């Protein structure tokens, strides 16, 4: 019951974010071509969306943290309320994201991408395909958002110099990934090839495992630092 109250408060802070998701999706709608072709713009928009959810994960920690702390929630309660608020937030975002593709779709487009992506699913089963796309989006958004939350949580606890070094390292890694996808991935559909059903099903448990490990790691770091 207490976690529900905390999650309900988190939803209040979501309104500006959901507005931003709609804006992003509209931008994607404008630039997406009506037939199957993974372009550089698609790749950049996908990466930008990932970064956007990462930043939102950071804001999900920073903004509600103090308020929930003031009202008696412990660190574990604050984190679990975040996890509780995730599913509905991300599913709504994913639905908005996929809906923009739907609006712009033409039969040829969906038939083509459905044939590419389904890998064993019935070609005519459009509903399953749409659900699958929503799951993919939700999973990717979840991974980005949880990573952002943990980043903020660890930054909050770790020595600032150490964190600055890690940020520089992370930026360098991100730039390397961007270069990889931009110059070596877009033509061969490298980005889309990762979003196979098998890989998608791994993302959710992977995200939860990463989140849990990250949380316990940050608690352990905090304890060790105080005892040193």
């Amino acid at each position, binding site marked *: 019951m207490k976690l529900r109250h905390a999650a309900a408060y988190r939803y209040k802070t979501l309104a500006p974010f959901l507005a931003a998701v709609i804006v992003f999706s509209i931008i994607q709608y404008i630039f997406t071509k009506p037939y199957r072709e993974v372009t550089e713009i698609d790749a950049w928009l996908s990466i930008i969306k990932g970064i956007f959810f990462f930043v939102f994960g950071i804001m999900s920690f920073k903004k509600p943290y103090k308020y929930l702390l003031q009202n008696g929630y412990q660190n574990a309660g604050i984190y679990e309320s975040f996890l509780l608020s995730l599913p509905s937030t991300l599913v709504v975002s994913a639905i908005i994201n996929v809906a923009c593709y739907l609006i712009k779709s033409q039969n040829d487009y969906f038939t083509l991408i459905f044939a590419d992506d389904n890998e064993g699913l019935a070609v005519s089963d459009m509903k399953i395909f749409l659900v699958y796309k929503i799951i993919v989006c939700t999973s990717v958004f979840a991974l980005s958002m949880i990573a952002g939350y943990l980043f903020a949580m660890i930054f909050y606890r770790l020595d600032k110099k150490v964190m600055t070094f890690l940020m520089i390292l992370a930026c360098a890694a991100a730039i390397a990934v961007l270069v990889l996808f931009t110059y070596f991935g877009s033509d061969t559909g490298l980005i889309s090839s990762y979003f196979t059903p098998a890989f998608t099903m791994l993302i959710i448990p992977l995200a939860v495992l990463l989140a849990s490990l990250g949380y316990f790691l940050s608690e352990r770091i905090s304890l060790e*630092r105080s005892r040193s």
Partner: protein
Amino acid sequence: MGIEIKNITKKYGKKTALDSVSLEFEKGKIYGLLGRNGAGKSTLLNIIDGRSTGFDGEIYIDGEKHSNKDRLYFEDIFLISEDNLYPPDMSINEIFKDTKKFRKSFDAEKANAMLEKFGLKAKSRIKELSTGGNTAFKNIIGLCINTPYVFFDEPTLGLDAVNREVFYRLLLERYSETDGTFILTTHLISEISNIIEKLVIIDKGKIILNDDCINVLENSFCISGDKTLLCELTEDKNVISKQYFGNSASYYVIGSEIPHSTVTGLEIKKLTLQELFIKLTEDEGRETL
């Protein structure tokens, strides 16, 4: 039963904020937790409330170990911290409604009635409030929550004299209605000496005084006069500070009954709480207890 703290040590890097602090906060008392800037007052309160982790030692709340309490939500204590943790865009009314959801014991009606006493309006947003306004609305929440332990960290920050009097009066009214424990930290020591029952002074992470306020003040005095005479008179007493003026001196004594001024040439006066605090915590001329 109260709050029992055993050997709490808290470090921030190389700095020791609290050094083997042990004390008890009894139920149904008003405590004054006094200390200079950076002494460790807020750190101690944050640790008891569970906001600060990574410390050594144990805390027991009403006989139950702190770490065995609900790790998600802690409702035995309500801490009004010096920092404003409320979202700046929210209005006072919205915060009261949320607080009612988070804390069932919060009396929102009473809180709304108190706003007028501090000159606040329910629709005001937190970012629109002055420093004193922020302090006042946070104090109102603390006064209207019925939890066993309520901590006020700097409840007078930015409050004008009138609002401070209002707060003290409401606090005493609240205290008389419940059997709760209230802990106040403040730098306006002279004002709270008539309010607090128990006095805890913390300095550089250590507890240097923990006693009944009346008891402490009854047994604290300043004796001035010829320094040779003073030395003889205070040989077996706990002198915490000395000041010299040529052949004369002033000795500040604690923990002894005030002597009768039978010796001519000596002036004896009782210490106020503020004087006592200054002499105990000043860096020059300080004697350890």
